[in-house]
């Protein structure tokens, strides 16, 4: 047979197959259990309260706080700028645009870290990125940012710097005590920049290309 006829038939056949099968709508990028375990072990999902407070104080538009507690708890107390997505509704289609995106850093929080962690695990497992968990939850937030414990005078400089930062952030966010900012750092170097490990942000970007 004419090779052109064979080729034409083959390619039309492939076209028929692709037209007949349903479009693949499953997300091929998923995290498998072992990868998830590695991430959990490293605590990759946690974000420091200081870092969150810093971003909030600076009105950083790239942070989105997500309260995963129930609406009653959310209404009685929430962090500034937070939205409420209760854990039960985390898989609803309505919230996919918020949870699965490239631009913002989502931070889940609950009273402790249990619910927030569950929210993170669920979203991580379906392949969503840029979601994090507020380390220590609201309890630790209230303890550290809203009512920081004054370190003893003999503490390291970083301790004092962190304390000053927390006081400043707490009062700026309206959740802190009215105590003045301590000036007791030994060398008084930039008290507002505590040593916080930076979270590595990974962004998916399509590769530009083209031809002619």
């Amino acid at each position, binding site marked *: 047979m004419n090779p052109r006829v064979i080729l034409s038939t083959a390619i*039309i056949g492939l076209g*028929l197959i692709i*037209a007949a099968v349903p479009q693949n709508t499953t997300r091929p990028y998923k995290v498998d259990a072992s990868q998830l375990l590695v991430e959990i072990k490293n605590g990759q999902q946690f974000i420091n309260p200081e870092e969150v407070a810093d971003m909030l104080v600076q009105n950083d538009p790239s942070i989105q706080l997500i309260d995963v507690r129930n609406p009653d708890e959310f209404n009685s107390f929430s962090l500034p700028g937070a939205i409420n997505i209760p854990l039960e509704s985390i898989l609803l289609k309505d919230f996919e645009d918020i949870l699965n995106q490239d631009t913002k850093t989502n931070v889940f929080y609950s009273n402790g870290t249990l619910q927030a962690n569950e929210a993170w695990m669920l979203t991580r497992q379906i392949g969503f990125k840029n979601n994090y968990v507020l380390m220590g939850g609201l309890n630790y937030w209230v303890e550290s940012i809203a009512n920081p414990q004054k370190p003893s005078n003999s503490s390291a400089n970083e301790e004092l710097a962190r304390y000053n930062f927390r006081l400043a952030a707490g009062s700026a966010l309206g959740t802190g005590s009215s105590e003045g900012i301590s000036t007791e750092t030994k060398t008084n170097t930039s008290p507002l920049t505590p040593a916080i490990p930076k979270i590595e942000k990974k962004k998916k970007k399509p590769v530009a290309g083209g031809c002619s």
Partner: protein
Amino acid sequence: MGPLAPNEIITENTNLFLAFIVGIGFGFILEQAGFSSSRKLAGVFYGYDMVVLKVFFTGAITAMLGLLFFSLFGWIDLDLVYVNETYLYSAIVGGVIMGLGFILGGFCPGTSFCGAAIGKIDAMLFVVGLFIGVLIFQEGYPLWEGLFKAEYMGTPRVSESLGLSYGLFALMLIVVAVGMFWVAEWAEKKFPREEY
């Protein structure tokens, strides 16, 4: 799994390196298909040689089928594959300029480099013209910025505008392409040229 670079399976630099290899392959295929001859390329406008149409349509439907099957097997996430944004007026005006240049010069940008690489003087002149065009565009940018950015449409796909699934549209395109191949071969017999 794929696309490899956005999913960070390979780094940006590896990606560039692969692009370099693929680019060399592309140039090789162009030259091997005879695309470094402007007479052969111009044949598509006169009907005596339709190799341009055949090669590019074959490339398009092969890549299309490949992507759709890869997506079906879960090897690539089509949502992450880059699609050129459509600026409607830019596309039309640019298409007309490119088409005119193609008829006048007998090359398109890729094939002109191909021709220049094997020492064709007309192709080298075409490349010079290409850079003059780039310079004019660049220096006159404020003049045509409005037109350049007008009618931004995002990344519309023909299948979406028609309300068809990717697969059905692919089948239609394949049928059209195969039909076109037969018409092209008929045209080559109808308007033959001995030496070109």
